[in-house]
């Protein structure tokens, strides 16, 4: 794993990369919080986290490489972007991945996120994801929360987020939860009800509003509301790629289960 971070006010050594001795920025007295978003059901994590980056005018401060991730680069306005990037503003950090992970990469990603948290004194992490729903009602999607440590139960209560009670989790969410529940860093996973196979910006708006409450920041969602239809068209290929990866993860998981339990 290689973590490159610049201008964060920290310095650290990394075995696989050069040492970075960085500028010392003004230390913030608030606790550092990390948000994590990656392609999953309805692309809820991708939409909501990238909207916050844009809306809060967060700056890219680093990038994360994980072993065996196929070489992929994105070019935006002539700028080369790696798939997994780190953004920061004040005490908020964001790790966003533009590529979905198979089971093996998901585990590597979870370890990389945990190493990042240790290096940068992250006190809690919030993961944003989607939950498939059978509901066809016209009501706004609901959002549920799952915490790895009791200390975050209060965050659910204060922000009126119902607790996710029953279900099974697999994929990248499960990999991150599995890593963090064994550590001292608490994690909160937000699951917004969404269409599982189509991009769902409507569910993402619910996630954005909830994230804004948790982070105590003001976020105007009118921009994403105006662009919902176009976002759905624009992200068709990423959604398709994500579904294929999720199906592969599910199959990998099933092949490990004893025959009797199928």
């Amino acid at each position, binding site marked *: 794993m290689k973590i490159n971070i610049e201008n964060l006010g920290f310095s650290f050594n990394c075995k696989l990369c050069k040492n970075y001795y960085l500028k010392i920025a003004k230390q913030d007295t608030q606790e550092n919080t990390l948000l994590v978003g990656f392609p999953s059901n309805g692309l809820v994590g991708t939409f909501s986290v990238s909207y916050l980056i844009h809306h809060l005018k967060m700056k890219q401060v680093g990038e994360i490489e994980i072993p065996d991730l196929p070489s992929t680069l994105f070019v935006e306005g002539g700028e080369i972007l790696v798939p997994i990037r780190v953004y920061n503003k004040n005490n908020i950090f964001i790790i966003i991945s533009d590529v979905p992970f198979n089971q093996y990469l998901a585990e590597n990603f979870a370890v990389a996120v945990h190493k990042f948290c240790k290096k940068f004194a992250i006190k809690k992490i919030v993961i944003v994801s*989607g939950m498939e*729903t059978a509901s066809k009602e016209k009501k706004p999607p609901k959002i549920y929360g799952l915490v790895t440590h009791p200390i975050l139960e209060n965050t659910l209560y204060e922000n009126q987020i119902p607790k996710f009670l029953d*279900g*099974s989790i697999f994929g990248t969410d499960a990999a991150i939860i599995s890593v963090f529940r064994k550590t001292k860093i608490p994690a909160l996973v937000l699951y917004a009800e969404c269409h599982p196979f189509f991009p769902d910006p*409507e569910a993402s708006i619910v996630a954005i509003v909830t994230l804004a409450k948790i982070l105590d920041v003001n976020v105007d969602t009118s921009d994403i509301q105006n662009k919902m*239809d176009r976002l*759905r068209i624009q992200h068709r290929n990423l959604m398709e790629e994500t*579904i294929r990866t*999720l*199906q592969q993860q599910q199959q990998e998981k099933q092949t490990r289960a004893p025959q009797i339990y199928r």
Partner: protein
Amino acid sequence: MIKNIDFKFEIIPPIINSLFDDIEHRILSPLSCLREFDNHWMLEFDLPLVSKKDIKIIFDGNTINVEAKLKEKYSEEQLGKITKFEYFKKSISLPGKIDSKKTAAKFQKGRLEIKIPKKMLGHSVKIN
């Protein structure tokens, strides 16, 4: 990803079809998914920027064709060239016998749901 156990019906992994946009004819390929239930298929298309009146659904044997005109043109850069797309179009072949005359469709929030009953063939077996 999470699967809620309240999700009552059994889902066969949905069939997701690859997307091939037709740049020459300015046609977008919509996302779609096909799910199998006990006595019907549920075929869904994601059709944002579309009005219900501009959707055409046509059966041809076991193949279903969906075509929809966009309310406004959608521009996208593909292969270094900006294309203004005007339509969604896709054909899906259903894997089993269907009763196309009893098919029902619903369009809300830019999503088209087509419920296609299966044609039940065969005979019952008496248990001795």
